[in-house]
Structures are given as structure tokens and as C-alpha cells.
């Protein structure tokens, strides 16, 4: 114990003035910053007569306070202070960008606030929450999310197949890998136009023409609910399958070659060796890929917003696209934020459950 404590202790002893100065620096900077925030809030609340027009100087002051904090830490704690400098910027940044909006969002969620009405923000208690439970469109969107999350399993199956293909002994592997990866790079908005609004277009789209050729008389991809939902899912799969595929491919390449060869010598068929050796060994990678993919899937919005705007009759709506329209078209800020916060709670519960089930499953199979 003695040995461990000597090194910071000796630094503190050789430069006690700096340590004191560091403490003072942090204290003074904090007081200054708090005073600034207080003064600005009072000015905004029209209690005092002077202040800044916007809060932007306060944001700069926050940066300044961060610098002072970092400097103070170094002066006060020497090497330990230097070490804390590594995480300090990221922590301060994330705290500033997340903590305030989250709490402020919680406050907005309990207000009645429509940007297009003149009344401004009014506290309304649980009214938004009651409205949420009575809103069939929101529950419909949540139901759609269940469908979209389940399509991840189909994407996973296709991606696994593609990863196996790329892992086989083939020529021009690099070409195929790049070609398969490209859809992942494209912006969902561009994809919405490229596929949703032109390839699948009712009159001239090549896919519609192909469907007519194959005997489907009126290939409308976005007019009946389930077809529309499937079309959105197909577009989403087109973009995201490469993501799962690349992770699975890396997993396949990390598998020891001897295992499958041993299975071959033992006379196992390819089918057997896949299900009894490759698949179980791939389980951890698979679960990581699926969980990550589901996390991203829960944010699905761009394609839906741009191709169907949730139609027909909300059949393709995701929660995010529904709230997006609540904000942009109806300016219903308070209610929209309540929907979003409620969704966040559901997501946290769902992801926590998912992770614990996944962990237990991986442990059981190993």
C-alpha cells in the first residue's frame, strides 16, 4: 500500500503550491460558470436587465470551464490528472449533449405544447400519457416495429448464406465482397428514390415490369398494407444485409480450419458439419450481429419517411417516422416527445431483456 501511494504523494509534496492552485482554479472556474448560468437564466426570465441575447456564450463558457477543470486536475493530481485527461473530453461532451436534452425532453413530454398554437408551453401532467394509450396509430406503429425487428432474422439467414458463399473457395472474392458491401454505404434517402420510387414504380419501374411479365397484373408495391410493409422490409434488408454479412464473414474466417476438415474425415456431410460445428461456433458472433442490428432497426425511419410517409393508412409506419410526422406536420411537440420517451423506455426494457437472454444462451451452449 505504501509503495503505491508514494508516487502521487511525492509529486504532491514536491509541488504543493501547484496542487493548491489546481484546487483553486477548479473552484473559481466552477463558481464563475455557475454565476454566468444563473445570471443568464435570470436575464432570460426578465428578472435582471443585462445578459446575452442567446445562450451561445454559455456554451463557450462550458468549454472554458472544461479546460480549467482539466488544467486543475493536472495541477492537483499530477500523473493521475494526466490520465484522467484521456476520458475527460468525451465525458464532458457526452454529458453536455445527452444529459440536458434527456431531462429537458422529460419535461417537454409532460407539457401541452404545439408550435403552431400561440399559447406556448403549458404543464399538463399525465395528459399526454393518457392520449398515448388511446392513440391507435402509435400502437399500430409499435406493432409494425415488431414486424420490422422480426425481419432481422430473415436478413440474418440471407447474410449467413452470403457469408458462407464468400468464405468458399472462389475466384474474384474481392470483387464480390465489394459488390455485396456497396448497398450498406448508400444513403437511405437515395435508396428510397433509387428503389422505392423508381425501380418499384408502378408504371415504368423495371421491377414492376418484371412482375407484370411474371403474371402479376397490377404490381402496386405500396398500396395494400402487407405488400407495402414487405416492400419496405425488402429495401431495408437490401441496405443492411451487408452489415450482418461482413460480421459473420469475419467470424467464419476466424474459425479453425482443422475442425471442418476433421468433420469431413469423420464422414460428416456438409449439412451435418454446418449444423453441428460451424453454426454453434458462430453463435457468439451471430448474437452480437443480431443484437447490434436490432438496435439499429429500432431507429428505422428514413426509408419509411421518404417512400410511403407511413402509408397506406399507417401500415408501414415505424415509431420514429410516426413521431417525425407528429413534429413536422402537426408541430405537436409535447405529445411527440412523450411518444418518443415512452418508446425509449420500451427499448431499454427490450434491449436489457434481449441482452440477458443472449448472454444466458451463449453461456449454456458453451
Amino acid at each position, binding site marked *: 500500500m505504501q509503495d503505491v501511494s508514494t508516487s502521487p504523494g511525492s509529486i504532491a509534496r514536491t509541488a504543493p503550491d501547484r496542487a493548491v492552485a489546481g484546487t483553486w482554479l477548479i473552484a473559481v472556474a466552477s463558481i464563475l460558470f455557475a454565476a454566468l448560468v444563473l445570471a443568464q437564466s435570470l436575464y432570460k426570465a426578465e428578472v435582471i436587465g443585462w445578459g446575452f441575447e442567446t445562450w451561445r456564450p454559455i456554451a463557450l463558457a462550458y468549454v472554458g470551464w472544461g479546460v480549467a477543470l482539466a488544467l486543475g486536475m493536472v495541477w492537483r493530481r499530477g500523473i493521475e490528472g494526466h490520465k484522467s*485527461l484521456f*476520458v475527460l473530453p468525451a465525458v464532458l461532451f457526452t454529458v453536455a449533449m445527452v444529459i440536458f*436534452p434527456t431531462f429537458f425532453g422529460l419535461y417537454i413530454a409532460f407539457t401541452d405544447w404545439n408550435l403552431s398554437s400561440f399559447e406556448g408551453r403549458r404543464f399538463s401532467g399525465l395528459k399526454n400519457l393518457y392520449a398515448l394509450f388511446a392513440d391507435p396509430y402509435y400502437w399500430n406503429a409499435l406493432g409494425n416495429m415488431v414486424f420490422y425487428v422480426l425481419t432481422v432474422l430473415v436478413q440474418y439467414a440471407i447474410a449467413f448464406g452470403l457469408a458462407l458463399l464468400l468464405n468458399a473457395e472462389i475466384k474474384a472474392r474481392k470483387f464480390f465482397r465489394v459488390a455485396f458491401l456497396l448497398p450498406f454505404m448508400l444513403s437511405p434517402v437515395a435508396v*428510397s428514390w433509387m428503389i422505392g420510387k423508381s425501380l418499384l414504380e408502378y408504371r415504368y419501374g423495371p421491377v414492376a415490369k418484371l412482375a407484370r411479365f411474371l403474371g402479376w397484373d397490377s404490381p402496386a408495391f405500396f398500396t395494400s398494407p402487407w405488400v407495402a410493409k414487405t416492400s419496405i422490409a425488402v429495401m431495408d434488408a437490401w441496405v443492411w444485409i451487408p452489415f450482418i454479412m461482413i460480421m459473420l464473414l469475419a467470424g467464419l474466417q476466424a474459425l479453425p480450419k482443422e475442425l471442418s476438415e476433421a468433420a469431413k474425415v469423420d464422414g460428416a456431410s456438409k449439412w451435418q458439419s454446418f449444423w453441428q460445428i460451424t453454426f454453434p461456433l458462430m453463435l457468439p458472433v451471430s448474437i452480437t450481429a443480431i443484437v447490434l442490428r436490432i438496435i439499429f432497426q429500432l431507429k428505422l425511419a*428514413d426509408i419509411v*419517411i421518404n417512400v410511403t410517409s407511413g402509408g397506406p393508412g399507417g401500415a408501414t409506419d415505424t415509431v420514429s417516422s410516426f413521431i417525425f410526422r407528429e*413534429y413536422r406536420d402537426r408541430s405537436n411537440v409535447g405529445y411527440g416527445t412523450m411518444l418518443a420517451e415512452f418508446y425509449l423506455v420500451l427499448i431499454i426494457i427490450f434491449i436489457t431483456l434481449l441482452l440477458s437472454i443472449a448472454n444466458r444462451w451463449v453461456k449454456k451452449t458453451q
Partner: protein
Amino acid sequence: MTVMAHTQARSRHVTPVRLGRIVGKVAIYALLIFWAFVSLFPIYWTFSTSFKKAANVMKGHLIPWIDYVPDWLGWRSLGLSPDTLFNTSTVRDEFLNRFENSVIASLSASTLAVVIGACAAYGLSRFEYKFGPMKNKDISFFFLSQLILPPVVLAMPFLVLYKELAFLDTRIGLILLYTLMVLPIVIWIMRDQFDTIPIELEQAAMVDGCSVWGAFLRIVLPIALPGMVAAFILSVILCWNEYFFAALLTSTHAKTLPVMVASQTGSQGISWWSMAALSAAAILPLIVIGITLERYIVKGLTAGSVK
């Protein structure tokens, strides 16, 4: 004995086995080519449509020079065809402005995220922290948990916050938000990268008189450079494609390319060629990145998934 038996069995069934292998090979290549077609056709379609005329679109012509004559129609409407390139064009000015916004927002946000993310990842991989009750594991979890935050939750608070900060419709506002968005991914990739670098390297450097930061900057960073490039490129892709926040938080000055593409789709009916040209211009940089830097993208995507 068993080896003998196997070779005998193989020589007896040589024709069916070889036949099966050929069929398997053909099936593999057929599937590969099919999926390559699925992946590439929409991209090909977009680029080829930007050179079509109305009649070509309606008749469903697909192959330039064989069933239709390429024309600069789509690119002319953007002011980017050879004959309009030196004339003044308001559409082109708008396009270039959106393009510039996208470039600046995604490059700056990715740089910022990689700088602070790499530092944080290094700290979390090497040192023991204690911020109150939070230890390394909790701090890592705090960063990674930002991943599950859906953009809709932050959207309204940010609209209000940015209004107060006068950050609405500015590039700096977008940059900060995008940094927040990609930071967890950068930390995830970089921590995986630093964990693979042996700690003895820095210990040796510190014995030689390097400071903590000296060892990090001079010894570790050069080794971790591929990981940083991977994190940077992945961030650029994500920021370039971001639509949700850009649509809500920008209006005239800081609008990015995806918002411009999205705003065209509804209003003009189907002027397919100009939409195709616009989409093609929006995805072209990413396709170039994808083809030339594929190695790094794969590295970034697979970080932490394979132990």
C-alpha cells in the same frame, strides 16, 4: 487402414464426386452472381437513368448505346453537364452548397469524434478510473449505451436547445450532433484496437522517460492508425447518410445533401433523369470510398465482434 479405405472409396466414386463438385461450384457462382446483380443493379439503374430521356424511361430501356442514346438531360438539370458547366445555374449553386455542407459536417464530426473517442478509448483500455461510483466498466457502458438512444428522443430537446444557442440551421450544430451520434461507435472500434496492442510497449517507453501522453502519441497512435482510419471512414459514411436530424434542424443554410434529395422527390412529379442525377451525385463519393477503402470499412465493422 482407415486412410487406405478412404482412398479406395474415393477412387471408386470418382465421377459422381467430381460431378457433384462441379455442380456445387456452378451453384456457388450462380448465387454469387445473382446477389452481385441484386446489389449492383439499383446503382447501375440510377447512374444509367441520369442519362435517359423521358421516352427511354417509359419504354424501360436499360443498356446505353444499344437500346437508347445517352443524353445529358439529368445532369443538365443540375447544371453539371458539359454544355452547362460554365454557365450560371442556381440549381448547381444550391447543389454545391448542399454538397459542401455534407462534406464539412461529416468530415469535421468524424475528426472530432475520432480525436476525443480515441483518447477516451485509450484511457478506458489502459487506466483505472473512478468517477464517484463509476468505474471503467460503467464509463464504457455509459458511452456505448448512447447507441440505443433513438434520434426521435433527442430531436425536440435539441430543436429547443439549438434555438437557445443560435445553433439552428448552422453547420456547427450539425457537427456537434453527428459527433455525438458516431462517438459510441468510434469508442467501440478504438477500444478493441488498443486492447490488441501490448502494454509492454508503453511501459518500455515510459521507462525511457516518455510521459503518459508522449507514450500514447508517439508509440501507440502510429500502431493504432489503421483502426483510427477505419473508425473515421465508418463515421464519415454514417454522417454523410444522416437524414433525420438534418431534416429537422436545418432549413436554408446548413441543409445537407440527403435533405435536398428528399425534398425533390415529392414536388416535381417524375423528372426521373434529374432525380437520378441528384441521387447519383449523392452516392458517388460513397461508392468511391467503398471501392477504394473497403478494407478499412470491413475492419471497422468487425471490430469487437470476433475475439
